[in-house]
């Protein structure tokens, strides 16, 4: 924790106030399914798992959403896709992969049946539309995490 008594101030009603920063350096074990997904991301590949109904889940589902069984069948999925919805973030926050205004989007990667939540470096809200094609921008120094995709970039190619 940081902040605290040395940086206090006193409000109009006499209350002592002080900044407090809570931070936790979490390290999470990922299990076999996410391990394979993140290892593939580190190699600039995207993989998903196939469910009992044939749907391909990206990010991969560990357990079938319909039957609850362990999923074991893997499918290669493209790192290109289509925007299915988006919103504009005019003021990026700490932790975002981009630190200038960008779009959040749900992206349907080619070959996947579920959508991936990620950032799109569209430049402005006028430049992005649902249906546009995007391609992953890979991190120069991957760490085996979702941010090995830094963001998605718009590509030419008409909206689908």
């Amino acid at each position, binding site marked *: 924790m940081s902040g605290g008594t040395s940086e206090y101030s006193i409000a109009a009603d006499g209350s002592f106030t002080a900044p*407090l920063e809570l931070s936790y350096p979490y390290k999470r074990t990922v299990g076999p399914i996410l391990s394979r997904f993140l290892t593939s991301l580190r190699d600039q590949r995207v993989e998903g798992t196939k469910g009992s109904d044939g749907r391909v*889940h990206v990010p991969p589902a560990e357990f079938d959403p319909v039957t609850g069984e362990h999923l074991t069948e893997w499918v290669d999925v493209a790192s290109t896709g289509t925007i299915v919805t*988006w*919103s*504009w*973030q005019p003021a990026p926050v700490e932790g975002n992969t981009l630190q200038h205004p960008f779009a959040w989007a749900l992206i349907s990667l080619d070959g996947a049946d579920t*959508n991936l939540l990620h950032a799109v470096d569209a430049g402005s809200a006028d430049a992005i539309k649902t249906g546009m094609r995007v391609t992953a921008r890979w991190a120069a120094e991957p760490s085996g995490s*979702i941010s090995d995709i830094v963001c998605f970039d718009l590509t030419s190619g008409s909206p689908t």
Partner: protein
Amino acid sequence: MREVAIIASAQADNTATTTSTPVEMLIPVIQQVLANASMTKTDIGFWCHGSCDYMTGQPFSFVSAVDALGAWPPIIESHVEADGAFALYEAWLKIQTGEIDTALVFGNGRSSSGDINRILTLQLDPYVVGPLWPDDRSIAAMQARACLESGVVTERAMAEVAQRNHRNALTNPKALRRGDHSIEALMAAQLVADPLRELDCPAHADGVTAVIIAAGDRARGLAARPAWIRGIDHRIESQNLGNRSMTTLPSAALAAHKAGVANDKIDVAELHAPYTHQELLLTSALGLSEATTINPSGGALCANPMMSAGLARFAEAATRIMNGTADRALGHASSGPWMQQNLVCVLEGE
């Protein structure tokens, strides 16, 4: 099933910020709801609390709420890391077990302690979503866009929701935001998270709500016209935003079905929909008709005290039963991104 009714409620005035601690905020509301019911703390069989430690910024901060209750002699109490409305559901269940006949339920929180929009990111998948730090408003905005582009809602309909709630809030002294806005002004306002405008988004507030529920004849002895809980149900959807409907709320529809919403007309519905497009989705999912008055209090749009906004909806709905302005009302609480969880309660007067 035992009959259970809401017999009293109390709310703090919602404020944008306060220097009071969460416990200090609680004390007058606890005392008020007991006074409203002409009860003392020894009349209460169970105390159930809803709050969120991440909002307070202190681990186990919820424990200190017990200081507001005067827990000597020892009391039976419980806590949910959720809105007080879910604590009410737990208390309702405990009454069903026959262990208690009365319960005081409360929800509280200082949204202003930190950046609530950022804190809500912590409720997302911690492996592949949370680490990107998408904030709550951006996520709601994505749902709004999908609804607009599919035609499920329109910009005008969202503006009408904002207009109606802000006008209703003019008569609610507890609301934080209120006003008489024209549709044109609302639709021309600046976008804060395209496609959302400021008044499409909730007025985050520091607040407290407390409600007392009682069983059977005990309730009849405590209130002239108790608000009887005739149906209550809680359903939850997948946490995976990439594998959920963006334009419907199946969990709300199912909870409404299980709670028996459609059995008769609903006079008043208080909906815990923090964003305007969500009120539209919810109205549709719950099967509410135009005959239902929605959010006469101004709803969560005009005052969203995290962890008590849902319970406040129950309190507002129950108040209208108890004061005779409604015979059948709906109280609703939600939680999670895109209204992932929905708790629906049908209230009736005798």
